[in-house]
């Protein structure tokens, strides 16, 4: 009976959606409204908002500060001098911030499933993933992206990049591809909650773990661990290989010098996989009941 009811709601909703779906702009309008409401809601707790925004920016800086501190006690890390390692960290940091701002809130999915809130999102005439992303988008973290761009600029200055059309294309595309890969990891690990509601911090091992992993040259890691994270999950292609390509350095681990360009197909592949896993998860979803 319950199923019958929800089906009818969905049908009615879909009908409304098809009627409403005119131009492209109209299709995005509901998400814009959700987003605006979200920003207004967050801004209404002013003090909290600003403390959070400032902490967020400091947090982003901390990965880079950690690299600075480590180089305070050593001059080489995994065979790389400070400026090269810092360049990799800067790429990693910008990629992660970008992904975190856009889809980071998806990690709340397990709480949304547990509380039964997902059902109310499913009956709305809007796609699920964009809804989930926009109901708690971390707009106050936009500052972190700007900060990431600035730091990458400084890091690129430090390593004296030889500017060519190729380098320009790469330095623009690399953080975008990196963000796409991080976003895919965010979505895939969140999807685990469809099967395993109590997955708790499981996802953080790959999302925040991936960010920390990407923050350093791949040469510091043990072989097995590196194979799983760098190649298996593709994290080496976010910052390490693109940085080597831009710096014109040979890879001590043996991949050819164009490996940096692989970031784009790998990110595309990861996004495809994430989409597949997501759809499978949603189809698998049976409400938590009430």
């Amino acid at each position: 009976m319950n199923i019958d009811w929800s089906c009818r709601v969905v049908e009615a909703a879909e009908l409304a959606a098809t009627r409403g779906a005119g131009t492209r702009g109209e299709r995005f309008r509901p998400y814009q409204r959700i987003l605006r409401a979200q920003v207004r809601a967050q801004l209404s707790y002013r003090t909290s908002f600003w403390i959070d925004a400032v902490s967020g920016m400091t947090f982003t800086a901390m990965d880079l500060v950690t690299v600075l501190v480590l180089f305070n006690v050593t001059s080489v890390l995994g065979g790389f001098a400070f400026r090269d390692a810092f360049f990799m960290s800067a790429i990693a940091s910008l990629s992660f911030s970008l992904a975190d701002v856009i889809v980071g809130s998806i990690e709340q999915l397990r709480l949304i499933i547990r509380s039964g809130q997902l059902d109310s999102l499913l009956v709305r005439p809007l796609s699920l993933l964009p809804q989930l992303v926009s109901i708690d988008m971390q707009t106050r973290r936009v500052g972190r992206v700007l900060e990431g761009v600035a730091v990458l600029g400084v890091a690129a200055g430090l390593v004296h990049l030889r500017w060519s059309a190729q380098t320009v294309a790469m330095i623009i595309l690399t953080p975008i591809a990196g963000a796409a890969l991080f976003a895919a990891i965010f979505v895939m690990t969140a999807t685990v909650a469809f099967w395993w509601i109590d997955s708790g911090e499981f996802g953080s091992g790959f999302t925040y773990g991936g960010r920390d992993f990407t923050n350093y040259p791949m040469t510091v890691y043990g072989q097995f661990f590196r194979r799983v994270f760098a190649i298996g999950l593709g994290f080496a292609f976010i910052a390490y290989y693109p940085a080597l390509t831009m710096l014109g350095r040979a890879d001590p681990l043996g991949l050819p010098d164009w490996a940096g360009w692989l970031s784009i197909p790998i990110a595309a592949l990861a996004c495809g996989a994430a989409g597949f896993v997501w759809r499978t998860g949603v189809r698998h979803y049976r409400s938590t009941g009430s």
Partner: protein
Amino acid sequence: MLPSITATAARRPADRSHIHLQTFVVLAKTGFRRYSTYRQATLAGIFTNTVFGFLRCYVMLAVASSAGGTVAGYGGAQLVSYVWVGQGMIATIGIWGDTELGSRIRTGAIVSDLLRPVPPVPAYLAADLGRAAFSLLTRFAAPVAVGAIAFDFYLPRRVATYPLGALSIVLAVIACFGCRYVVNAAAYWLLDGRGPQAAWSLACSVLGGLYFPLRFLPDWLATTLWIATPFPSLLQTPLDVISERSTGANAVGLVALQAVWAVAMVALAAAVQRRGEHRLVVQGG
């Protein structure tokens, strides 16, 4: 119906001046039992701590090897134990903690805590100690065991390190509880606790010694942090004691400093709670 409850409570206010030892123990046991039911979440947490353990361990070992084996007074094996014990401590002291108290204040559920005939700070402390005991057996023990198997792990060589290390862990749990209580209680004033929570998790992980040992910083800065802030007493001190980076009088001194911070933070939590109760407005009814 609600007004009648409030009226009764006001006429005969519960005696919340002290807590019996027996009550304290019972509350601690319930804390232990509560967390022992979150089995899957515990497993997930162990997995994540282990991933981070490998990650940080490789980075630290790379730093040690390019710095010539020893860095800031830590040998390679000492850094291994620093990293893995640190991963075990995350859940034990509950560094990122939960925002339960904060959301109870926001939703008004805190009222039912205030109606109980026990002072809220010691009651929450008891439950937190129970939680910590469960974490010690699971989320502390498991990553440390993995680290000890996978790497060349430094086991304390002096007998005195074991009791001192244990004491240091307990003090870290209490100090961290006090800090988290204060952060959550900010909700009495701000309602939305996200900001203070974010600032806290940043401060305790960076200034506590989770990202890197504070001894990697210039001496003056590390010393200032140690004395002027509670953060190094949450992680850095127990880790230095257990990895025997600090021994003898030095270690005892650090643990004494930790005790001062533990008492100070719990006292601050109690003071903030008293002030907060005057601010509390429960909406609806």
